[in-house]
């Protein structure tokens, strides 16, 4: 195996380089939970997971519901996804994290 081929194997199998990040969240519309992303799926994704996680945390802090019964305006299940829609590990802990977690 040539070194170039070996490097290709490493690139494909070791660490995936995402092309961008979005913040995933769910909110209530007409008493139904709908999933949205920021930036939207048709908009250009963020190129920094640090910025994406910061945005996620700020959204979570800004739209925390006072009580589980009062979900008006609340944003729940906030986390960062990559360009394929897969959840991304929080860069600080290297673990999957969800802000304002809610079982729906």
């Amino acid at each position, binding site marked *: 195996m040539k070194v170039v081929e070996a490097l290709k194997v490493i690139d494909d199998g*070791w*660490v995936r380089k995402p092309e961008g*990040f979005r913040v995933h969240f769910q909110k209530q519309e007409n008493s139904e939970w709908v999933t949205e992303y920021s930036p939207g799926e048709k908009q250009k994704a963020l*190129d*920094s997971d*640090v910025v994406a996680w910061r945005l996620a945390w700020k959204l979570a802090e800004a739209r925390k519901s006072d009580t589980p019964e009062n979900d008006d305006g609340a944003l729940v299940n906030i986390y960062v996804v990559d360009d394929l829609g897969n959840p991304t590990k929080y860069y*600080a*802990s*290297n673990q999957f994290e969800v802000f304002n977690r809610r079982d729906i």
Partner: protein
Amino acid sequence: MEGTGTFEKYRAMGELIASQGQHFVIALFILVVGLIVIKQGSKLLKLLLERFALKPQTVSTVNSIISIIVLVIVIATALEQLGMNSLVIRRVLFLVSLAVIGIIAIFRPLIPTLPFKVGNTVKVGDLLGKIEATTILNTRMRTFDGKTVFIPNSKIINDFVINYQFTETRRVKVDVGIGYDQDILKAKQILETIMIEDPRVKVTPRPTVYVLNLANGCVQLGGRCWVENAKYWTSRCELIEKTKLRFNHEGIIIAFPQLDVHHYHGDASPEFPGEEDHIREIDVK
């Protein structure tokens, strides 16, 4: 008598406008359209020439020469509309254009040019900022803390200038020191992974981690990767942040400057090998 003279002048002017007015308007139209075409054509020509990877100075010279030739043709056509199609005028125009082209071709390379364009991020001496405008005498720069600085062009020509946008990419250095008792290989792997998984970091040249030095209080690791110029600052800051947090999470302790002081009493036994001799020396003194 005076009133009759004025009337005669106006009458003559009216006759002139009636007979030559149409030609005058057409000549003016040719001149205005010609100037607009030269200006727009010059921009297009510049873009076209830049594709051939010519030097900026060559592009500028060729562009100027072609613009002058077209300008002479436009003026000659306009004059022809006004009935001035004599051979003398054409020869004069031809000679003037040749002289101007000659001056440009000979003296252009001798005129010093500024090593940046408007909009570039540049460091001149101790000043770092974005170039907002350039004139013959000075250059206007806006620093990143919002100050507007007017720098004499003579100072720029005689000083070191770093143009951060001359190349598309720039290398990011992530240097970190870890304790001697830490797992170097694990630390290298974490640092390399952090760089590889960042979308802004270029695939080639590949991110690399080196053991830079075995320093006094730490093993120095150096991460090197390449990013786009425009994303350099945020990429660097975030890579450093990620490195600190990921090292913390993985249990790699980042070294910090420290000094171990050992204080011995007369009957103290040495704590580390080799210290016995040192204690003996102190006792003798």
